[in-house]
C-alpha cells in the first residue's frame, strides 16, 4: 500500500491508501476527499479533479500530455505544478507524497 496525503483547502489532511497503478483521483475519491469532484469519472474531460503537486514530486513524474495541459489552462487558479489527478498514475515511489487540493473545482 502506498500512502498519499491530500491537503484540503479547509486545512483537513486526508490520508489515502492506494495501490500502484491507481490514479491519484481514484485514491482521493476512495478516501472521500470532497475537493476532488472528478465528474467525468477519470477521462480528463471535465477538469474537476485538479490538484497541485509539490515541485520535487512533479519533476519526478512523466510530464502531462498536451490534452491534459490544454485542460489545465481552464481550471480555476492553475499553478506551475498543477495536474489533473485522474491523469497521474500512482507509483511505488510516491509513498509519502502530499497533494494540495484547491478550494473549488468549479
Amino acid at each position, binding site marked *: 500500500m502506498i500512502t498519499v496525503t491530500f491537503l484540503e483547502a479547509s486545512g483537513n489532511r486526508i490520508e489515502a491508501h492506494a495501490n500502484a497503478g491507481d490514479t491519484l483521483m481514484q485514491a482521493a475519491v476512495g478516501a472521500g476527499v470532497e475537493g476532488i469532484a472528478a465528474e*467525468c469519472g477519470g477521462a480528463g474531460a471535465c477538469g474537476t479533479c485538479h490538484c497541485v503537486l509539490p515541485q520535487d514530486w512533479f519533476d519526478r513524474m512523466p510530464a502531462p500530455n498536451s490534452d491534459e495541459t490544454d485542460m489545465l489552462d481552464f481550471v480555476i487558479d492553475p499553478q506551475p505544478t498543477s495536474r489533473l489527478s485522474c491523469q497521474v498514475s500512482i507509483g511505488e515511489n510516491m509513498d509519502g507524497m502530499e497533494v494540495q487540493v484547491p478550494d473549488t473545482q*468549479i
Partner: protein
Amino acid sequence: MPQISQPAMEFDPHGSAFAADPYPSYAAMRALQTPFYYEEIDTWMLTRMSDVEAVALNKTMLRNNEAFIGEKERQRQKRAINFHDMPYHERFVQVNLLESEGETHSRLRKVVFREFTPAMISKQRDAIQSFVDRLLNELSDQDEVDFVGEFAAHVPGHIIGRMLGVPDEDCPLLRHWSEEVVRYFDPGRGDADKQRAEQATKEFYEYLLALLDTREKAPQDDLLSRLVSHRDEGRLSQDELISTAMLILMAGHGSTIDVLGSGMHALLKFPDQHDRLRADGSLMKTAVQEMFRFESPLPFFHRFATEDCEVGGMRFPAGTRFGLLYGAANRDPDRFEQPDTFDVARAPNRHMAFGGGGHFCLGNHLARLDMDVIFSTLNARFATIELAEAAPEYKRGLSVRGPEALRVHWQRR
C-alpha cells in the same frame, strides 16, 4: 451474440406506466444477475452504476460504429431505422461533436470546451437573472401557471441563443427549430416528423449562414464569432461549425427544460425538502445536483463495443450495443444510500446525469447555473408554490425524462 437466458420481464418504455414511474422497471433490471437484453433495439441494458461507469470510461466503447462496420453497413443501418434521405439532417445533425470519436471528437471538443468553462459560464449569470426576472414579472400575478410551458421552456434556449450571438427577438425561432430537429429522435416518429425535422434543419442552416455572414464582416464578442475564427485558423470546417452551433443549441435546450420541470416537481412532492432549501439557500448547489440525480433528464445513451469484452459478468463480442441507463444507475443502492429519497443536502452525490468519460456533458455548468438562478429567484419571490394537479404527466419513452406540463399555484411574497 451471447446466449440469452434471462427471466421473462415486461419492459415497455413506451407506455404510460413507465412514463409515470420508470424506477421500478430499472430496479427489476438491476436485480437480474446479468445485463438485460432489450430485443426491440438490439441493445444490452446496463442499470448498475459500476457497469455504466465502466462502459462510459472504456475507450474501446464508442458512440458510433462507423469505424468498424464500414460505410455500406452503416448506410444499411441508417435505412433500417429510417435515418436517411434527409440531406440537411444527415449533414448537420446526425454527424456532430457528440456523435464523433477520436481525432475529430477531441479537436471539436477542445473548441467548445473553452466556451463552457465555469469562468465563461459565470459571465452569463446577470443575463439569466434579468431574463428570469422579466418572465416572472409577467407571470407572478397569475395564481396558476404551467411552470414548464409558460416559464421553464423559455429560459435555456434564450440564454444559449444569446451566448451564440443570436438577437433576442430571434431566440424563439431557435427554440422552434431545436424542437423540430430533435423530434426525429422520438421513438414514435413518422414520415411527417422526418419532413419537419429536415425542414427545420434547412431553415436553421440558412439562418446560421446569414448570421455567420454578419460575423465574418464584423466579429462580435460571441460564440459564433469565435467559431468563425476557429474555422479560419483551421480548427474546424464550415460544416463542423454549423453542426457544432446546432448541437450547442439543441444539447442543452430540451434537457434543461425537462430537469427544471422535474426538479420543481420533486420539490413540490417533498415539501420538507423544499422548506429546507427555502430556509437555507446555501444548499442550492447540492439541491441542484440532487435534482439531476433524482430525475436525470437524459436517462439513456448508448455505446458500441469495438472489441470483445466482459461487461456485468458476461462476455460480449465486438459490435455489441450497450444501453447506458444513467437514470437507473443514479438510483443504484450500491452507490447511493436510500436512492429513491430526494435529499437536497445529499453529499457526496457522484451521479452520472451528465454522462461520463470522454463525452461528459460540456454544458453542465450552464445547466446548473440556469437551475441555481431560477430556484434561488423562486425562493425569494414566492411565499408558496403548490402542485395544482395530483400527478403531472411525464414524457413517454426511454431517452427523455421530464414533465410535459407542470401546473402550479403560486403566491408572491
